[in-house]
């Protein structure tokens, strides 16, 4: 046969591999040897593998703003056809909007009450011949009340089983509802009602909602529409209802004129709308309206960057890549800050609870050049696009991260960063678990003092007491949450919070009384608890990552960096010191973030946001467990 075939290097390598891994003798022995070799290879490099996993995870997180991970947005649903229609909104309609605005300014100047304003909106809708009603609501817990007005334009071309919403809240989202009025947003909605009823091309009902307050009004209205009862909310039932709401557009136009349109899209509990909706709007705004689109109010994209890097030489500072990195970083930070807290970034976020895709158009206040003319045309064209939908938005992405108005990251390009950290924690947890069951002992021989020989003593791992401790920490978390909730909702006194936190921080100190195990054949509680702690932290991160990536990223930073370092020590002061460190990590938010805490609990009480219970019932117990690892005897 052809001899050269055997001399081919690849062939030789294959033969050698075959000999090594498949000897012809006893198969079982070979199997055991192979398994042993593989295991010892793994265990020898376990530490470096672990460090590598952590490194890859954190480096990936740092590189999220790199342009290589983002890609351009595109329209996925063919039916949408954005920016393909002639718009009819004209200067006459701008004039109508101006007249509405005059009325609204008069109402503002005379400090009109909610009811007076609502009467005005109602009468204007009725003048247009659109069926409209008033809804009053009151939150019994915080005493917030107000009056919403809603009007429904029945679809001339459809059975009225589907609807889309145009809404504006009385308060603008400026400063997360700091009291700036959304006068022009509301007048746009009124003028649009006047304008849209003149056309017969609507295949879906159009519902106009002018909600009172910032988030509270729309929350009450949506609860009524979907007949969801909430114990602390007293509200009128709606007099008219339409079909299923598919999409909603919230208009926020606080200034005199605007230079850019900003997009806000984060919903309650981190839910995002279908990306097609945002992409369509972005295209329509640029090509139909001629208005540049930005994310949030990030018009000056490098603001953060120049603030941070004022000492960097201008040659590097003005480098294009670095500039774009920081502009993306700024967008990602803003996104994280909304999604972590599960706070809606505008009124649109409340719609997400009911599976309605919605976003807020924010007219960035500037001295020019755009006004009612541009926003009217853009909203009209966007409505036409939404009108084209034949089924609920489903084609494009629900899990994404917008890094720029026309750039986004797919789930596959950001998810692995947190997963790597989670896997690293799991690997370390399992390693601690396995090594807890062995104790390395020098063999003492009578002749020589210590022989060089060592053997491994197998020992039991106490699981039941550890399970009790773990469940105990969750009970502490639950109690912490309940006591904070009652303290905030009844006495409305945030000064008591630190004392509550301190009380719960002192509870585990009683575990100091546990004496160290005298026997060698039982693993110390602290190492078994550490194994459980790391595995649980890993589980929480990898589960949350799908639901709310920002939260998972924050957890993998706060837990991934700190939990692996928990360990017990011989001296009591050292143990206490470490414990205090973990307690600061677990509970210090009560001290420095009292504003944040009250907001989070407000979100929970009123809107049903999960951030406050999550922190108390999931995050605090995990860090507390690490603290207890330090408290327990070695």
């Amino acid at each position, binding site marked *: 046969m052809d001899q050269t075939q055997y001399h081919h290097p690849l062939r030789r390598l294959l033969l050698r591999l075959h000999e090594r891994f498949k000897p012809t003798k006893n198969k079982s022995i070979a199997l*055991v040897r192979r398994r042993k070799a593989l295991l010892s290879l793994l265990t020898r490099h376990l530490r470096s593998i672990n460090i590598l996993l952590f490194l890859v995870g954190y480096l990936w997180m740092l590189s999220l703003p790199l342009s290589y991970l983002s890609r351009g947005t595109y329209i996925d649903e063919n039916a949408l056809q954005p920016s393909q229609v002639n718009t009819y909104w004209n200067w006459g309609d701008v004039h109508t909007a101006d007249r509405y605005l005059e009325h609204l300014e008069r109402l503002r100047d005379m400090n009109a009450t909610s009811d007076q304003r609502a009467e005005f909106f109602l009468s204007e809708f009725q003048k247009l011949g659109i069926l409209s009603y008033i809804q009053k609501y009151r939150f019994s817990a915080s005493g917030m009340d107000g009056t919403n007005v809603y009007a429904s334009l029945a679809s001339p071309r459809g059975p009225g089983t589907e609807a889309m919403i145009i809404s504006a809240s009385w308060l603008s989202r400026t400063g997360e509802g700091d009291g700036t009025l959304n006068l022009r947003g509301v007048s746009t909605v009124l003028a649009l009602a006047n304008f849209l009823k003149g056309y017969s091309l609507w295949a879906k009902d159009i519902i106009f909602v002018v909600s009172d307050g910032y988030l509270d009004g729309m929350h009450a209205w949506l609860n009524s529409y979907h007949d969801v009862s909430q114990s602390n909310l007293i509200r009128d039932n709606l007099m008219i209802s339409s079909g299923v709401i598919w999409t909603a557009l919230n208009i926020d136009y606080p200034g005199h004129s605007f230079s850019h349109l900003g997009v806000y899209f984060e919903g309650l509990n981190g839910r995002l709308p279908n990306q097609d909706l945002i992409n369509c709007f972005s295209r329509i705004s640029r090509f139909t309206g001629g208005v540049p689109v930005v994310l949030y109010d990030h018009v000056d994209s490098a603001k953060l960057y120049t603030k941070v890097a004022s000492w960097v030489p201008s040659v590097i500072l003005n480098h294009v890549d670095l500039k774009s990195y920081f502009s993306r970083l700024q967008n990602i930070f803003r996104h994280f800050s909304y999604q972590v807290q599960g706070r809606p970034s505008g009124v649109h976020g409340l719609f997400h609870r009911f*599976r309605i895709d919605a976003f807020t158009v924010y007219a960035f206040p500037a001295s020019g050049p755009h006004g009612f003319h541009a926003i009217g045309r853009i909203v009209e064209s966007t409505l036409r696009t939404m009108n084209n939908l034949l089924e609920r938005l489903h084609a494009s992405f629900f899990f994404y991260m917008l890094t720029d108005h026309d750039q986004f990251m797919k789930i596959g390009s950001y998810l692995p960063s947190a997963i790597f950290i989670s896997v690293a924690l799991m690997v370390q947890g*399992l390693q601690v678990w396995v090594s807890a069951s062995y104790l390395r002992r020098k063999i003492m021989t009578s002749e020589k003092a210590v022989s060089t020989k060592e053997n491994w003593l197998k020992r039991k791992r106490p699981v039941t007491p550890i399970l009790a401790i773990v469940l105990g920490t969750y009970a502490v978390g639950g109690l912490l949450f309940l006591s904070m909730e009652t303290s905030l909702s009844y006495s409305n006194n945030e000064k008591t919070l630190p004392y509550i936190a301190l009380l719960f921080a002192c509870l585990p100190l009683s575990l100091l009384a546990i004496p160290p195990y005298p026997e060698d054949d039982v693993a110390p509680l602290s190492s078994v608890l550490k194994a459980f702690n790391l*595995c649980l932290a890993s*589980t929480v991160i990898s589960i949350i990552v799908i639901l709310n990536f920002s939260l998972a990223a924050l957890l993998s930073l706060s837990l991934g960096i700190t939990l692996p370092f928990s360990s017990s020590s011989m001296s009591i002061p050292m143990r206490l010191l470490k414990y205090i460190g973990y307690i600061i990590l677990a509970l210090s938010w009560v001290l420095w973030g009292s504003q944040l805490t009250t907001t989070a609990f407000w979100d929970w009480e009123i809107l049903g946001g999960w951030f406050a219970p999550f922190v108390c019932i999931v995050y605090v117990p995990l860090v507390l467990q690490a603290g207890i690892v330090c408290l327990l005897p070695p």
Partner: protein
Amino acid sequence: MSSSKSPSPPNTLFLSLSFLFPALVIVRIALSTTGLPDILKNDHQLASPLTSFSQLQEGIYLFNHDIDPYSGGTFRHSPLYLALFTTILPTNQKLCSILWTSCDVIGAWALIQTWRQRQNVKDSPRDSLIAATYLLNPYVFLPTLALSTSTFENTLILLAFMFAAKGQKSATLLSIAFLINLSLSSILILPPILLVLITDPYSHLASPRPIAISSLKKTLPLLGEFLVYFAALIFASSIVSGGLSWISQTWGATLTLPDLTPNPGLWWYFFTEMFDHFRSFFLVVFSIHLLIYIAPICIKFQYDPLYAAFLLIGVLGTFKAYPTLSDPGLFLSLISLFPETYPYMNYPVVTALLHVHASLLLPLFHHLWLTTGTGNANFFYASTLVFACANGAALLDCIWSGLRIAIAQVPENYVVVQE
């Protein structure tokens, strides 16, 4: 056989059965009287179309109004439920919650009795632990709170175990006849239970010995007795429902899968995706797949048929049509009967972690798919795959440790391999 644990700790009174069992029962009854049943009642993971309380109520309503509940295709419960709930059992939801919880209590009590029989002791310090593993197992108590009729099936299985362990032949066979009438796929545990009846319930895992072939003849009269009970129940069911149409609607549903409502099992997604012309073939494959486990497991564990029955319950929990969480839950709780195998388990921590992941992912992905609408069916299916992995891992580890215990401890540097 029993692995005698270290002497009981000082706080025996607190952990003693007479204190802990009533405490657990009180906790469970308190839970059942809360508003939880209303929230959980229609959860896909806790109640399948074959076990859902809403469907049962609908069937009872139709039955009371002289409409054949089996003509519609929504009611798939056994006629025995109709007979019982229209006569002696309450249909009021509050009373039902308590009835369901007391079924669990009976189940836990039967589990303790089985344990005592297996150890051949009057009482043991592990009793309360065993009661707790059943009464506090979330996979068991959540379906009970959701008023899923799988609770009755579990209780019947546990009663069958108890009677078999006590050697009460007729009672065992009657409970199994009831069980199979309620859920056809439970037929898997009939052969090993018959074997328990002709041998003994004690643990022979550590000292395997072949069962005498001649003694197998003794199962024939038992099988005959079972068939008599079974036929009587079929007759009763037919009289209650006024015909044989119930058979295709109840037992037929487990074989032909007419309702593709999502559940934590493996069948629904597979048959949602399947082209119609392959459907009947794969229905046969899936049904026979369940049956092929009976013979090998019964032969391999012929010296300890109770363990074989336990393993087959694990097979059911992993692979049966229309499972709810209570099917794998029963398997996990039953692990507490066999502490002698614990030291030989390969990866209990991995199994536990898989179950933690699965039990968090299932409700989460269900929520993403059906509530927020950002996910889709594939999400939930993926989580049921994780759940199946967790159940499979538990089952495989139990098979391994049940076999491995016979070899006992090996000297250092020796390894046990399977060839």
